[in-house]
């Protein structure tokens, strides 16, 4: 029992990891460790290293040396979104229903989707969301699209997994002000949910299964097919001049230093205000502005936030953790000023915005009619 739990934990946590290549098939071999421990270890290391050596999308796809700057070719640290993962459709559907279930909140009016409006880019368009208490919470609601690929969750990264993240809004008195026990009671009272959990989880309605269902749903919120992804996948003619100019600026000015990886963000923490003092300029600093400091307690982590993903950034205004910037052009400018020590001219900003708009992907919630992203 315990062992099977451990195995479950392992498989769910490391899903997709190259390491898992060392499967149970190797078990027997490893058992003979006394004879070949060192050899086996070396072999595994070599194999795993070989397999794990990444093939960068840019390396493969950006080959037109004439049209694209050298640094882009050399190692643009971006990659297209992966395919929507294959998940249990039933569970995803249950997750979707739970995601939209207002009864999960204390007053029965707030669902996950209340603040993460899928049709509006996965957030609520507000500087900071309002939950059951009616009070504004400290930070801007990030988009739930492509959320699974974030390396940590919340602006300060205080949750390492999506499942852990869910505890936040559920328990927060200002958000849903609920508890898993209450939610389980609510779901138990519903024949419909009971049926679904009977079918999918052998009737187990628990924190684990609820989280799993919602997380599974969220893993499907992948907005592939953006213009950018198609561009870096080889369609060089796709970008307009402005968009290409913007992309070059994005690279050359240094945006990509932090907004990188598959999400163009969401894979590191960075201090807000490197060249200039953002919070000094803005004033009215609250605890929510301390960022990572709130998690680690280390002074050097103060004002450090998770770099947000730029995917669908055109849809997720207002911007920054405090939601203080309503327009994309403004936040581009602000970012350049505080983070890169640059004062961009309007052209540069225009190009960059044009580029950023190519990051808008497709999803049935985003484009119910299958519209091409603008």
């Amino acid at each position, binding site marked *: 029992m*315990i*062992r099977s*739990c*451990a195995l479950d*934990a*392992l498989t769910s*946590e*490391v899903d997709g*990891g*190259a*390491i898992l290549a*060392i499967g149970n098939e*190797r*078990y027997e071999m*490893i058992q003979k*460790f*006394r004879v070949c*421990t060192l050899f086996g*270890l070396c072999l*595994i*290391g070599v194999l*795993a*290293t070989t397999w*794990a050596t*990444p093939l*960068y999308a840019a390396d493969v796809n950006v080959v037109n040396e004439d049209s694209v700057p050298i*640094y882009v070719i050399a*190692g*643009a*640290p*971006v*990659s297209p979104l992966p395919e929507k993962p294959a998940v249990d459709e039933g569970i995803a559907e249950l997750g979707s229903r739970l995601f939209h279930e207002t009864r999960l909140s204390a007053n029965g009016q707030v669902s996950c989707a209340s603040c993460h409006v899928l049709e509006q880019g996965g957030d609520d368009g507000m500087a900071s969301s309002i939950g059951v208490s009616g009070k504004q919470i400290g930070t801007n609601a990030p988009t739930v699209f492509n959320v699974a690929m974030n*390396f940590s969750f919340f602006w300060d*990264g205080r949750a*390492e997994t999506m499942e852990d993240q869910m505890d936040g809004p559920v328990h927060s008195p200002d958000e849903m002000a609920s508890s898993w026990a209450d939610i389980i009671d609510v779901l138990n009272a519903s024949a419909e949910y009971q049926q679904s959990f009977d079918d999918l989880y052998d009737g187990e309605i628990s924190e684990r299964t609820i989280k799993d269902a919602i997380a599974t749903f969220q893993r499907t919120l992948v907005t592939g097919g953006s213009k950018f992804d198609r561009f870096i996948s080889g369609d060089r003619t796709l970008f307009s001049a402005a968009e290409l100019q913007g992309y070059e600026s994005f690279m*050359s*000015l*240094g945006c*990509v*230093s*932090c907004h*990188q*990886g*598959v999400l163009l963000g969401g*894979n*590191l*923490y*960075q*201090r807000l205000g*490197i*060249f200039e003092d953002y919070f000094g300029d803005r004033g009215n600093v609250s605890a929510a502005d301390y960022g*990572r400091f709130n998690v*680690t307690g*280390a002074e*050097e*982590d103060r004002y*450090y936030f998770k770099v947000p993903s730029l995917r669908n950034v055109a849809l997720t205004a207002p911007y920054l953790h405090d939601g203080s910037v309503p327009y994309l052009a403004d936040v581009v400018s602000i970012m350049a000023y505080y983070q*890169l*020590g640059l*004062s961009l001219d309007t052209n540069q900003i225009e190009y960059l915005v044009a580029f950023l708009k190519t990051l808008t992907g497709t999803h049935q919630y985003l484009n119910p009619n299958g519209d091409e992203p603008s």
Partner: protein
Amino acid sequence: MSRNLLISGVLSILLVIGIYSSYQRWFQLDVRLYHYLLEQIQELRVSDALLDKSILELRTGISLNYDHVNNSATAMRSISTSIDLTVESLPELSESVTKAIDGIGELNNARFVDLERYKSQHAIYRNSTIFVQTQLVEVVQEIDDKSIVAAIVEVSDFLRDPLLQHKQRKTDRVSSEIDILSEYADANSDNHVLISIVRHMRLLQMRGDDISSTMTSLMSSGVTGSIDALLKLYHTELINVQDRVKAANIILSVVAITLLFMIAFAVSRIFRDRKSLLNLTQSLENRVKERTADLELAMIEAESASESKSQFLASMSHELRTPLNSIIGFGKMLELNHEEPLSPDQKIAVGHIKNGGAHLLSLVDEVLDLSKIEARELELSVEHVHPAHVFGDCLELVRGLADSKNVSLGALMESDNCVLADYGRLKQVLLNLLSNAVKYNRDGGSVNFGCEALSDDTVRISVSDSGNGIPNENLSEMFTPFNRLGMEASQIEGTGIGLTISKRLIEEMGGRIGCESEVGIGSTFWLELPRSHGNALAQPVATRETQHRVNPLLQSGSVTGDILYVEDNPANRDLMKMILGRMGNLTLHIAHTAEIGIVMAEEVHPDLILMDINLPGMSGTKALSVLRQNENTKDIPVVAASANALPHDIRTAMESGFDGYITKPFDIPVMITTISNLLEGVDVDKGQSVSVANNSSRSTRVALDYAPLGELDIGRILSAVQMLPPSYRAILENQANSIPVILRELQHVSSTQDFKAVETLAHKLKTNSGTFGARQIWSLAQEVENFARDEALEEIPRLLDDMEKEYDIVAPVIARLMADLEADANALNSE
């Protein structure tokens, strides 16, 4: 015992199974978990290497994508979590390993913190580096001041190579150059790019040490070393665990083998027990067989002992009878010799000789009787008997004795009670009791009789005397053989087996006999017999007592023929000569041995051979078979003449082919009858007319008169007359008289459809006619009886007519016979 062992065997097997399954649970799974943990640690080691690789790639600029390092870190994190879970489920894990794992977890967490910091710093650093590098060319072209350009290039070169960052000696110079550049930039404030470059440079310079130290911390986190140490430690642990499992295996094997041995032992015990049980059964069976064999042997011995006894009695009686034969026979011959009559004194002397012989013979006969009873060869003819009749017979016999002792005999109790008994035997018993009662009575005493029905089923007959009585302590010995209760020395004659025989006879007839006595007053002997509700044949009480006498018929010869007598005993030969000499025209040839007899038989071809059985050399039986095998002699009738009087001997002899059997001492009438019969038969068989001897002897005449009738079995009549006690002459007479009466009754009844009555009457007629050897009437009566039983009366009138005609022929003969007998008896009485 076996079942207990079986149960314990089953329990042992269950225990083994239980231990094995538990063992799987307790040890095998743990071993798997231990191995799984090892696998996880190895994976952790691998992911640690991957993470280091990713970090190095970042540092060297091979990769700028934090996704990779993130993936490595995430993988490592989940492996750590998984390891923690595994450790939780392995409580037996040694503390050093747990601590090492915890330590690695802490180191890892510290490294993750460093990693995040490094990523942030690295982003800035790379960004500034790239910015400086990319913008450098453009800026440099616009600047004329060579020293500034040189400074810019030098600084950028310095900053570009992260490996040189820690070269302290250059740091100060770079710092001052940046200051110069900063001044220059401030002076050319319109050159925004230059300003930016300088700011980046300053940033790089400022953050250079930080990122360097973060990197150092990150790469020297000690995680790798710890994991290696853990692996080493865990190997030891794992070996220990395996040793433990091995030990457990050994223990389990020992336990299992022990249990298996126990089971095997149990099974073997079961089989052994079963085997020993089988052996026991076998030996028991053998013992039973042996015992049975012993018993059979004992039985055979007992039987042979009994046989010996019988043999002894037989030979005794033979030995006794042979001399008695001479004594009585010659005594009679002397008496009957009319040509040379005895003087009165001689007559008295011969009378004593005869009486003594007769007494001795009766003793021998009683002994024989007893042996017969014991041999269960007693043939009883149980029928309705009127005890009063029997008493009547007996009284006549003891009256003489009673008179001589002056004992008064009581009146016969009038009673209609009938018993089921053999008439002759009952009479024998009563005679014994009566004679005892007289013999052992006091002078002038009395004897009384009783006959009463005790119940519906039992009749008690009692004989009371007024003798001295018998002490109670002797009563129980009354009926034991040869016990005369102190009377051995007395004057009273007795064999001491009379009561024993009586007891046996009564018991054979289904009755009881007993005695009650009071000393000084007298004794009462009683016997109880089954009561009969039928009618006893009306038999008049015989009123005359006669002595046993020689039939007058036999006083002279009446038949002719050659007779060969084979006999070794001269006395017997002489006796035979005398007897046959009286019989008339008989020629007697004598042979001393069987061998001579056989030769003589062939030469003389006699009409009859009398053969002694016990001959020296060849026995009579053997001689018979030789004669039978010889064509010339095989048809000659051979009569055995032997002193062996046991029924067994007679039967054996008859079975071996003798035509007759006469016992010694010769009962002369029987012998004569037998001889006559056979000689007559020979004549008939030969188809010759009966040769009639012109003999005027009365007996011969009677015999001759009977013979040609053919209807009467003369031998039967004679034997009937001779074999029955004298008192039976009355019965004969009665029977003779009853024949015409029955015939009349039959005629009468046959018209009434009363089958039962017809059947009864026919049966009675059959019996009565049979007595006289009236064969035709007998067979006709038989037919009538059969028809009556079948309730078919059609034939009966004809049969009755035939019987009437037959009776007309027979009646005079019977009448004459009866008259002769009467006359004979009278003649004897008159003597």
